[in-house]
Structures are given as C-alpha cells and as structure tokens.
C-alpha cells in the first residue's frame, strides 16, 4: 500500500487542501488589515532594505494597513501549485499571458471598481491595458510593467574576444559570427538559449517573431498552430549551426530563467535573449557587475511581419481576499508599482529610497501608460539614475522604433511547453531532424488548441 500512497500523494495530497474554501478573511476586521505582498526571492540585502523602507513609508501613510512581504516569483510550474494550494500572497504578479485566463476562471479578485477610482486609470497604454481586462473591459489585473525582448551581452567577454562592445551585433549573421569569436577566444558560451520550464518555447517564439513568423493564427474562434513554418525552421537551423558547426553555445543546454541569468551574470555567457528590463533582477538577484552589462535591440529580418515579442507583468489580488484586504491591496499596488510612474513626488521618493540602498534606478522599460507620461517620469528621476546609461544606449535608442508583437494568446504556456523539447533536441542531438520535430510539434499544438 505504500506504493499506492506514494504514487497518488504526488498530486492528491497537495490538491485536497486546495478545494477548501478560505473564509478566514471574510469577516470585517476591527484592527489593522494585514496584506501579504509579493517580494522577489533571493534579493540581496540592499534590495530587501529598499523594499522594507518602501513598506515602512506605506504603513506610515496608511496606519491601519499592515504589510507583510512574502517571497514570490512567477514560474509556470510553481504558480499553479501555489494557486491551487492557496499559498499565494494577497498581492502577486503574473505575466500578461496569464491575465485573461485567470480572469475568465475567476481565480483572481475583481478589483476593477477600485482600479477605476485611481487617478490614472484612463491613461493606460491601450495594448498594455488589454492584458489585464476581462471581456467586458473591466480591469481585474493592473499592468505594472511592460517589456520587449532584447539581446543581452557581456561587454567584458566582447572585449576579450576582440569585439567592440559599443557596436553589438545588428543581424543574426553577426550574432552567429560574434558568438563563434567569443567561444574561440574566451572558451565561454558565445550565445546561450533558454530551454526549460516553458522558457524554451518563449524564446523560440521570440526568435520566430524576429524572423517574421507567428506561432498561431486566430480566425474568429478557431486557432491554428503555425509551428511548421519556414521561419521557425530557419531559427532552429541557425541554432543548430551555432551549436554543432560553430560549437559556440557552450556546454549547458538546459537553462531556466534563473539559471541563465546566473550564468550570464557570472560571465559564462556572451549573449542571450530575454526581456529588455532584465537589468534590475540581474543586479539584485545575480550580483551582475554593471561594467559587464550590455544590451541591444533584437535584430529583425527584412520580412514585413518581423517584430519584437513583447509582454509584461500584471499585479493581481488573490481571489480569497476580503473587501478590506482588496482595498488595501489596490492601495499597495498604487503605491509600490504605479504611483512612481505618474506622480513626481512618488517617483522621487521611490528613486531616492532605491538609490540609498544602492539598487538600480533607470533600467529600460516599455511604458505602461502613454509615451508622454513615460518620458516625463524619466525626467523626474533623471538625477537619481545610477544604471550605466551609456551601456544601455544600443537598446534604449532603438526600442521604440521596433514593432511590438504580443505573445500568442491561446494556450500560450502549453504551446511553449511543446516547443521546449524541440529546441532541446536541436541543441543536444546532432542528427535532430528539424522538419520532423516541427511537424510533430505542430500536430501536438493543434490537438491542444482544438481541445481547449
């Protein structure tokens, strides 16, 4: 019977706890409202101090609210377990791709009424706002950050390889050549790719977009998988050549988001593709040396459809939250995430606190609100900016020129998951048949889209 127990317990034990409805927060509190808020895990001391300082400022302004930070990070595999197990904080963040699904299933709280009363509610960038809205346009989840994918590179490795760090590669051929040069001259991975935990599919889709492809086509209610395309085949062929002909991709082909950031920050990787706003987490979580860091726009091919995959982060409130907790949670979202983007006083206070703890201010981001608000917010904090702006210029100079394409909307993470083994196969099996891999992945994704 032990075997029976063990086999079923993997799922069952965790799941039974999930179905119980929590009503412990439903009665009207008489004392202060306690709100558990998400804080990135693994932050260095300075970043934690900055966060605590922000908490103290908030609590001073709202004496009846008690903020309790809880370490939280969205990953595809841990999020469901936390959601099902009811262990998420009251305020947590999710990527744009999860917004609509969570709203449809009512797995997050409807805070639209509270959000509408925020002074800047009508000024969200329309495309960005969509990610947090229900079908009827009500904003259940608040966009707090938007990003476009970018090419991050290690300036020190560039120099060691005899490349000019101020002139990063501007085309995929140049990326391949630079990767080869880095690998040959430094022995490090010239270019590395995310491959696990659904991120393999995420980056493969990014490269597909950059080559002018799309991974799905939506026609009314019907979604068609478009994985077996010349663009995706070309992307995989490029990776295959870099891996097997040039041997410029190092020796690790099982990277997740945390793993690749760590490897990059410790100087093991010359270039990799990830969100353009990654600088902050590379510094606060991976101890990146700012002098090493360079970032540039993702090269796009000449095809008219070529674009940069963009996404973002939504702040959401737990579906279990009581009315007072919801109200306090929205106040926190306003204070911690948004006010600094729209209000000079808040922006300066945030920047001051962050700088005092030697944390990065001024890492590139795409605007959550309109461009004018964004430009103005940059001016407010200009004197506090402590990121190496010159090194970010290849990206910041051109990031607004590139067409931004949103992530696939249907079964996004599941299709990413199907693509993970495809990119892994190309990078770990010399004789991998790209056409066959794509044909099978396409059929699998189509079956999935039909089922959902």
């Amino acid at each position: 019977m032990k075997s029976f127990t063990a086999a079923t317990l993997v799922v069952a034990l965790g799941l039974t706890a999930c179905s119980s409805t929590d009503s412990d927060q439903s009665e009207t509190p008489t004392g202060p409202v306690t709100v558990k808020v998400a804080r990135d895990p693994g932050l260095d001391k300075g970043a934690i101090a900055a966060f605590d300082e922000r908490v103290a400022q908030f609590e001073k302004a709202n004496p009846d609210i008690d903020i309790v930070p809880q370490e939280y990070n969205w990953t595809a595999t841990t999020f469901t377990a936390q959601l099902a197990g009811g262990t998420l904080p009251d305020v947590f963040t999710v990527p744009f791709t999860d917004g609509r699904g969570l709203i449809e299933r009512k797995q997050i709280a409807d805070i639209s009424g509270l959000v509408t009363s925020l002074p800047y509610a009508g000024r969200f960038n329309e495309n960005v706002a969509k990610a947090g809205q229900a079908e009827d346009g009500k904003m259940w989840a608040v966009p707090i950050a938007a990003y476009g994918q970018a090419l991050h590179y290690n300036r020190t490795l560039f120099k060691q390889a005899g490349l000019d760090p101020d002139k990063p590669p501007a085309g995929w051929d140049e990326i391949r050549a630079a990767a080869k040069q880095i690998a040959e001259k430094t022995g490090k991975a010239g270019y590395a790719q995310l491959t696990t935990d659904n991120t393999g599919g995420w980056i493969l889709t990014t490269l597909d977009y950059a080559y002018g492809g799309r991974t799905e086509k939506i026609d009314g209610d019907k979604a068609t998988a478009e994985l077996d395309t010349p663009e995706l085949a070309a992307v995989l062929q490029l990776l295959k050549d870099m891996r097997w002909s040039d041997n410029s991709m190092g020796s690790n082909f099982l990277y997740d988001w945390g793993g690749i950031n760590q490897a990059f920050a410790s100087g093991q990787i010359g270039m990799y593709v990830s969100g353009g706003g990654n600088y902050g987490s590379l510094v606060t979580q991976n101890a990146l040396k700012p002098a090493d860091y360079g970032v540039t726009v993702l090269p796009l091919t000449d095809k008219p459809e070529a674009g940069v995959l963009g996404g973002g982060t939504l702040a959401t409130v737990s579906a279990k939250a009581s009315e007072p907790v919801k109200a306090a949670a929205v106040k926190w979202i306003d204070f911690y995430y948004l006010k600094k983007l729209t209000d000079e006083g808040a922006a300066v206070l945030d920047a001051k606190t962050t700088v005092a703890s030697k944390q990065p201010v001024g890492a590139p981001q795409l605007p959550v609100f309109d461009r004018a608000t964004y430009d103005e917010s940059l001016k407010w904090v200009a004197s506090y900016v402590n990121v190496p702006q010159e090194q970010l210029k290849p990206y910041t100079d051109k990031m607004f020129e590139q067409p931004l394409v949103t992530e696939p909307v249907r079964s996004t993470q599941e299709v990413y998951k199907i693509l993970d083994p495809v990119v892994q196969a190309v990078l770990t099996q010399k004789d991998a048949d790209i056409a066959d891999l794509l044909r099978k992945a396409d059929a699998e994704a189509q079956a999935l889209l039909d089922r959902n």
Partner: protein
Amino acid sequence: MAAETRPAPLVLPRSTRAQRTPLTWIRRGGLSTLVFLLPLLLVFGIFSWIPIGRAVVMSFQETNLVTPSTFVGLQNFRDVLADPLLWTAVKNTLYFALLALLFGYPVPLLAAVVMSEVRRFKGLYSALAYLPVVIPPVVAVLLWKFFYDAGPTGVFNTILGYVGIGPVSWLQDSATVMPSLVLEATWAAAGGTVIIYLAALTGVSTDLYEAAEIDRASIWRKVWHVTMPQLRGILLITFILQIVGTAQVFLEPFLFTGGGPANSTTTLLLLIYNYAFANSLGGQYGMATALSIVLAVILGLLSAVYFRLTRGWSKS
C-alpha cells in the same frame, strides 16, 4: 479448539453476548486500545486515505479546483492512454529502473559484504556509507550538478581529463543523461540499503562460516553459499522495494533536467506532475490522478504477484 466449540454452539454466543457490555469492553482494554490507535488512524486517515480516496474520485472528474468539478467517466484515462508522451515516460521509467537494478541493486550488497569483512573502524565505514542519505536531496542534486558540469572544467570532466577522456556531456546528452541520474540516485540511496544488509549480516551465524572455513572454502564460495542464502529474505524485500521505488522516480529528473533534454528523462511521475502543474493556468488534475491510479494499481499488482511467486523462496 474445534472439539471445544462443537458441543456448545448455542451456549457460547449467548455467554459472549452477555459479556460484551460497554463496561466489559472498557474493562478489557478496548477503550485504551482505541485511544492509543486513534492518533494513528487520524494521521493515516487525514494524510493518506482521504487524499487517496479523493484522488480516485478526481480521476473520474474534470476539475480546475476552483469551479465545481464534473464527472467525465473514463475520459481522463482515455486521454492519458492517448498521450504519445505516456509511452516515452513508460520507456524512460523502465530504462531508469533497469539501470538502477543493474548498478544500484548490487552495489549496496557488495559494500555491505565487504564492510562486514573489515575488522577495524567498522562504525566509521557505516557512517561514511550512510552519510549521503542524510544530505537533503536538493542539496545533493545541486552538488552533483557541479560534478556533472558538461564543460571541460566540470568536476568529473576535469578528473576524466587527467586520463585523457572526455569531456562527457553528462546531463546535456540524451545518451548519457539517464545513467548520470542513476549514478547520483545510487549514491544517494545506497547507504540506507547498506545498513539493512549490514544488520542482516550480523544475524548470519558464525558457525556456518567456521564450518565453511574448515572445508577450506574461498571467500567467494563463503559469500555465495553462506551469506547469500542467509540474506535471501532481505534480498527479496529490497528487490521489490527497489522496483517500486524506481518506478516512482521523480526527484532526480525533476531537479536535474526537468525531463530533458528532449523528454529523454521524462518519467511517469514527472509526467503526472506536468499534467497537474506545468500549465500555469490550471492543470489537468483529472489526467494526473488517473495516471497516478493506473501506476499505483500496476505496482500493487506487481508486488502481489512478486510476493506470491517468491513466497517459497524467502524461507531458508
């Protein structure tokens, strides 16, 4: 007994009925038995049997754990059987089990026999053998990830480099990844089995060895003709435990590779986990529990058949 009960079939029930009042039940220790049993029943009930019961129910349902569940009959089982990844997972699990049997099964036995022959520092050797078992698995895996670094500077590759081998890809290649996982798993688990064998070996009568020595038996013959038959019962148990354990391998593929590269380490339990948790927007909990139930039934049957077949063997 039979002779006693036959002449008084009518009297005995009446007398027992008369004796079975709650008071006599308490007086005979029934209550204290129940009180002592209660914590165990509660713990088992809450943490084992209720979840198992719920899992069985859930395997016939479609649920996202938020909206009400609906019964879908055998659909989850059909979906699982139609999943092409299932057969990959079955194949990978069998491969892991086979490798673990080939390498992981004899190693602890060999180690225990050798250790029992050692005259000095016996305790030290047992402690050293048992040490990996007390290291938390996550820490052990992180440690082994460094060992398995596929670059020429990885720990194992550096060592192999001294003798001109490698660099080996270890976890980064479909061909080497599974043996690498088995190696770590054997290292991590062998200590526990070694202790079991060592305990069993102390139970082997020294007279037998002395008799064998008088007959001038070699060490090999002593092991084969004395030690092995004496350990037969234990060996049979550890064998089935090993099969059941390896069929449920999860930790190593989950922490080392996440099932990669290209699904070459996606095992049954990892597949179950992926059904339930890999999609951030609510997993297929029905399919996950359905596959869990199928696996549990198969392992249960396997154990039953194994014990029936080997019933006669364990008696020496």
